[in-house]
């Protein structure tokens, strides 16, 4: 299938990109940002998206790579999944992000797809939005009115919708360091490389055989990624053992709005959320 025709620009700076987006907005035409294209290209081909202008930000210097920023990592929005998985800083300080990113699609997709692209696309069935949410990441956007930072909790506002305003470009992701935390990303898919029916991103800090703190993000359990707040509360202070974790995990579907579709009913997704949360938390709390 061939995409509908569009104009194309490849800006060389964030300012130029924001200018192109703002120009399209002012002209009443639709612009789409092209990062790695692994979500946008299929949408263009199927003509589910038919923008007037595609702004290719894939080569803007400075948007790619990982940098140590004291108690956090700064990850450029155009850092590819492949680079995230291999990055020593990410592996050391944000293991959950590396582990979950390694499960995104397949190697060829990970070579082009980017962390920023995945977060800005905000597909609730994508793996990384739930991870960003679980890790309390902060997202930096630059727009015509300057730069601002949005916590992940406020970033994902609806199905395929974020707090980014038209004309704003996601430039970076700030991920706090999780040194000493255990982690696990559990997902259930029908086939290799398929979307997650449900995914569970868990980061757990243990002390003296007990879970001191747990952060859990759920993939595909509603129109946006969600935190399993009831499970987190039940786990605080709980013994890091099968029974208490299973009991806490039984609340995993509370407050969620999973979709029912050809892949599974809402009840089935709720069941998966409970099972995968138990597995993820036990693995995260267990010996590394």
């Amino acid at each position, binding site marked *: 299938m061939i*995409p509908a025709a*569009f104009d194309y620009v490849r800006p060389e700076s964030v300012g130029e990109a924001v200018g192109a987006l703002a120009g399209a907005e002012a002209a009443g035409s639709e612009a789409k940002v092209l990062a790695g*294209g692994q979500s946008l290209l299929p949408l263009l081909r199927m003509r589910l998206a038919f923008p007037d202008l595609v702004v290719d930000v894939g080569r803007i210097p400075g948007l790619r790579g990982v940098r140590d920023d004291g108690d956090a990592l700064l990850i450029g929005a155009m850092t590819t999944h492949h680079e995230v998985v291999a990055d020593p800083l990410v592996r050391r300080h944000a293991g959950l992000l590396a582990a979950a990113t390694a499960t995104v*699609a*397949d*190697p*060829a*997709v990970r070579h*082009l797809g980017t962390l920023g692209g995945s977060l800005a696309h905000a597909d609730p069935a994508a793996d990384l939005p739930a991870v960003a949410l679980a890790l309390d990441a902060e997202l930096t956007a630059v727009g015509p009115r300057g730069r601002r930072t949005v916590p992940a909790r406020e970033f994902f506002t609806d199905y395929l919708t974020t707090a980014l305003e038209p004309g704003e470009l996601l430039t970076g992701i700030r991920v706090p360091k999780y040194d000493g935390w255990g982690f696990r990303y559990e997902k259930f898919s029908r086939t290799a490389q398929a979307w997650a029916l449900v995914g569970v991103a868990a980061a757990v800090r243990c002390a003296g055989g007990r879970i001191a703190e747990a952060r859990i993000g759920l993939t595909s359990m509603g129109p946006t990624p969600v935190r399993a707040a009831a499970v987190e509360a039940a786990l605080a202070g709980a013994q890091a053992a099968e029974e208490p974790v299973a009991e806490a995990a039984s609340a995993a579907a509370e407050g969620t709005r999973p979709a029912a579709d050809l892949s599974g009913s809402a009840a089935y997704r709720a069941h998966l959320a409970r099972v995968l949360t138990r597995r993820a938390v036990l693995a995260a709390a267990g010996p590394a």
Partner: protein
Amino acid sequence: MSRISVTVDGTTYEDDVEPRLLLVHYLRDRLGLTGTPVGCDTGNCGACTVDVSGASVKSCSMLAVQADGAEVTTIQGLAADGRWHPLQRAFHEEHGLQCGYCTPGMILAARDLLRANPHPTAEEVRHGLEGNLCRCTGYQNIVRAVLAAADAGAGTGADSGADTGGEAAI
């Protein structure tokens, strides 16, 4: 129209392309390099996998303009001096194909895998090729072929000309 300069299988091309032109259509329809097939056209099957500047990508999921300045290798660029690449030979000898439609993508994906991991286990081969679908073989012989190519040194930097056995009908 956007002006691009792309090197494909060792030849550099300068072309004006429509921004919406997919890389796979550029290769096939503009350059006549039909060794790279269009499979599912949805980004799932991997049949159109090519190498872009050292990384496997699905050429149906990349615009030709995104490949501006890149070095592209397709299945048609693997053989050297009339000799097959070790992966091509291994797929032939291990019967790693039936209809052959997925083979160009399988080989380019396997080449990428072996570059990162020259001596993978069977499990690692299966995992590394999970973005490439085959509807004929059941994958058994594909895995065997990749392991045989690894034994023949396909992933140890001898990317072309390493195959010193026999003439290839290419």
